[in-house]
């Protein structure tokens, strides 16, 4: 079972208490964007075999959204951080770089 650390409650939470919310760090496109960008925003999600950033909600707890850095190939969790964070924290990036040298994901490297 997937266990994620809720950054608000400070506790480790089973996935049955969580709700998955899809890709994190989505850049929202508005009026004036190109068809390609808008298509990407609406329909094309990152689907990596490897490191991934996701939104999760602690639905049977504090009810708040947070982000998780995870590996979809091994189910390893690198860390979680509040949803208001625009960039993944350096500490989590360092941990990912240690375990997955040269990783890249969407806009992050």
């Amino acid at each position, binding site marked *: *079972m997937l266990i994620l650390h809720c950054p608000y409650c400070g506790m480790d939470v089973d996935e049955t208490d969580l709700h998955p919310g899809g890709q994190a760090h989505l850049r929202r496109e508005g009026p004036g964007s190109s068809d390609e960008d808008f*298509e990407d925003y609406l329909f094309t999600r990152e689907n990596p075999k490897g490191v991934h950033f996701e939104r999760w909600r602690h639905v049977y707890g504090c009810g708040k959204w947070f982000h998780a850095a995870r590996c979809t190939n091994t189910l390893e969790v690198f860390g979680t951080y509040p949803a208001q964070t625009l960039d993944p924290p350096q500490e989590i990036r360092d941990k990912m770089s240690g375990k997955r040298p040269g990783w890249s994901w969407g806009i992050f490297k």
Partner: protein
Amino acid sequence: MKRYSAFAIAREALRNHTGWERAWAKSEPKKKYDVIIVGAGGHGLATAYYLGKNFGITNVAILEKGWLGGGNTGRNTTIIRSNYLQDPSAAIYEKSRSLYETMSQDLNYNVMFSPRGVIMLAQTQHEVRGYKRTAHANALQGVQTEWIGPEQVKELCPIMNISGPRYPVLGGLWQARGGTARHDAVAWGYARACSDMGMDVIQQCEVQGIRQENGKVVGVDTSKGAIDCDKLGAVVAGHSGVLAKMAGFRLPIESVALQALVSEPIKPCMDVVVMANTVHGYLSQSDKGEMVIGGGTDGYNNYTQRGSFHHIEETVRALVETFPMLSRLKMLRQWGGIVDVTGDRSPILSQTPLDGMFVNCGWGTGGFKAIPGSGWAMAELIAKGRSPLTDEFSMFRFREGKFIDESVAAGVAH
């Protein structure tokens, strides 16, 4: 290839079964092929088979990184039906279902197609309306389905409890011509027929890169070296995104785990397939007597071929109300596969931004039923550049807003 027949069995019985040959030849890659198909699952092998059978293209290699039929082809609940809502879906799924009817004869390989009938249960008023609508749509599409009441459901499947209390059975969408088939045999039968036509089925050969020149595909780099090709078909289900990345484009799909399980074998108690979408479960009995149970997908991206335990628990817990006898059964085995889900729950059979490369993916939680129809259509797409069966399933349909919304027919259960 020696044909399988009753006579062949008698002949081999008289000589201690020493005359059987390999079903398909063990091949090493040649320098160049007209068409390379990546992925030797059902869809990939069917694509290769119809390339040879319908279009005479036999200089074909089918590359498989693992073993033949070891992905989702060997990991599903083998349900075959074509009771979808939208016209493009009905066309390709009904083509597929009809090809299953003669597949054993066509391939000279017993795929054990069993048209035992499929009921999709309606357990809420919403589902009653939805399935009645589907029955009307199917009538217009020439797909034989009918709406049946709860008494008929009970008659077709006596082990079912139709009176609730939480989810009483209000009726069902009945497709008498649906059923099941032996999933491994479908892959093996196609592989044998492909090999007989001179195609190379190459296992343990992982594609690691896609070579291109001037925007056109020219070959692939594999764990067994570089291989040239004129055309490339990617038929790799959950790993489609990985291959698309090698080719330099993105696909609107996400890869998630879908699980199934079987119970201990019991005496025959159920001779139809039942799908209960409200409670997220579906059930049939295998020829060995095991109750084959499938559930819903996990909600997060995953490539590990194993899913969350609690989804299994939820599926079985929900089915127990409708099938009380399940509560006394021990569960034997559980497994997971990585399915490729699109936003509108319909597949992608399409040309790609890379000239000469085609994709067949996005079958999501219900690809097994589509294997022959998908192969038929994909072969035409590769050979001719377009097919009437695939026109609507382009990967560019999302940009144009031309969805083929099958979330009712395909959102959960297969």
